[in-house]
């Protein structure tokens, strides 16, 4: 096995007492001194800082400086409507294969910086990024340049109800951003020199907050500054997972992969209405259209075990007569819910909230209920 890669923040994690684990080829913090549960609750009550620099950051730049050139090219690979993106807007979508299976899920932003509004900025999953880069290289036309920035840019998330107030101390303009919008700006606070950063109001916890991209050296300084605020604690991958599960957000490689379509995964909200026909012109469009019409396909749902026992990934889901109807794809304990929570696929006729099911945990059937996602309410900032 090749040596694990390190993010620019690696030594900060170690100094903070993080327990480091291999994740997607990187040596990453799974938890700090607070522990998974403490970090989870701190994020929901105040704010948490996550190093997500292992994720891939890519820019798509058209030679002709015409936004529609980039948008049309990317629209061949994702179900989302990209041409309608305005400068400063961000959208969630997926790369699909020819069969409509999900190759990866990603964030797509149209830059707002004057003179760069023709550029798209993508953030992709660490575990898929090499394949994603190859996929982009293969499918982008010659006049759209694919620039991978993993060697120069770090990425952090600042999440929780105190995130906006703290980041506003570094630049008050961040408070004006609404959910799924972004800006390029200088962050200063008590820093000796300002940090030039790409700041988007988004995240993976269900809380209000930001994702911030900056050059490696600048990010080291920025993280030091942010952690000097009492409200901010560093948060590891363990709590990142429990937070996103409570928020009902999919994790690639678990809840979504090439075996499911965005429709089966409940991601229809990310496929704009003008992109739902079989001839929408992107890889996998036929599958998206046929899964929309076919009422027999499986669906990703929230599942709440009735007792205290968590049901983990791969747990079998049965109907009340003992017939297999699906499988858990993410499951564990939700610290905010204070109980077990799970997501999984069930046959279409069982997908209604309130449907009783049973989960086979260590050979024993345990009662559970299909529920509406999320488990913890989203607290996104959509404007005053």
């Amino acid at each position: 096995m090749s040596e694990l890669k390190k993010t620019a923040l690696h030594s900060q994690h170690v100094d903070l007492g993080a327990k480091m684990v291999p994740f997607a080829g990187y040596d990453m913090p799974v938890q700090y001194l607070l522990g998974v549960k403490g970090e989870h609750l701190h994020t929901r009550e105040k704010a948490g800082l996550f190093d997500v620099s292992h994720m891939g950051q890519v820019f798509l730049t058209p030679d002709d400086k015409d936004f529609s050139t980039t948008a049309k090219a990317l629209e061949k690979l994702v179900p989302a409507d990209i041409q309608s993106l305005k400068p400063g807007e961000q959208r969630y979508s997926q790369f699909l294969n020819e069969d409509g299976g999900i190759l990866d899920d990603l964030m797509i932003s149209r830059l707002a910086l004057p003179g760069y509004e023709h550029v798209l900025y993508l953030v992709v999953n660490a575990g898929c990024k090499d394949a994603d880069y190859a996929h982009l290289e293969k499918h982008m036309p010659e006049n759209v340049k694919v620039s991978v920035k993993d060697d120069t840019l770090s990425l952090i998330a600042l999440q929780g109800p105190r995130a906006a107030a703290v980041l506003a101390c570094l630049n008050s303009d961040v408070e004006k951003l609404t959910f799924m919008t972004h800006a390029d700006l200088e962050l200063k606070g008590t820093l000796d020199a300002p940090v030039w950063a790409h700041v988007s109001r988004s995240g993976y916890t269900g809380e209000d907050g930001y994702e911030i991209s900056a050059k490696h050296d600048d990010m080291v300084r920025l993280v030091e500054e942010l952690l000097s605020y009492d409200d901010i604690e560093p948060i590891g991958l363990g709590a990142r997972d429990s937070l996103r599960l409570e928020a009902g957000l999919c994790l690639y490689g678990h809840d979504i992969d090439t075996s499911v379509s965005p429709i089966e995964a409940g991601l229809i909200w990310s496929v704009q209405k003008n992109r739902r026909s079989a001839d929408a012109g992107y890889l996998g469009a036929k599958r998206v259209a046929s899964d929309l019409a076919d009422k027999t396909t499986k669906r990703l749902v929230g599942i709440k075990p009735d007792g205290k026992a968590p049901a983990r990934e791969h747990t079998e889901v049965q109907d009340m007569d003992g017939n297999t109807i699906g499988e858990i794809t993410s499951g564990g304990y939700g610290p905010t819910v204070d109980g077990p929570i799970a997501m999984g696929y069930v046959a279409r006729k069982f997908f209604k909230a309130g449907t009783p099911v049973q989960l086979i945990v260590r050979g024993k059937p345990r009662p559970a209920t299909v529920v509406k996602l999320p488990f913890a309410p989203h607290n996104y900032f959509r404007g005053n």
Partner: protein
Amino acid sequence: MSIKYTEDHEWVKVDGDTAVMGISAYAAKQLGDVVFVELPEVGRKMEKGDEAAVVESVKAASEVYAPIGGEVTEVNEALEDAPETVNASPDGDGWFLKLKIKDTSDLDGLMDETKYKAYCEGL
């Protein structure tokens, strides 16, 4: 009543023909916040090394093995409502179950407190 430990971080205390068992402070710390403990039924017979219980932390499920063989005479039902007791008091109120000892020779080879402490330091 002396306490003995296994290499898998279970502890066992013997009192006459009864033994009480749980997981060590080292194990509880490694697991992190315990959120559920699945305990066996009273009356179940187990051999040394059999799966005795399952302890679930926020992140994962881990098996707990019987440090000695015997028949389960009592389980710590308080853990059902308060699994966090395992973290707060791993070798006290966070005990898992009591066994009627089948064969005291099962205790041979288990570590005493001093040896176990050295063993953990070496990990």
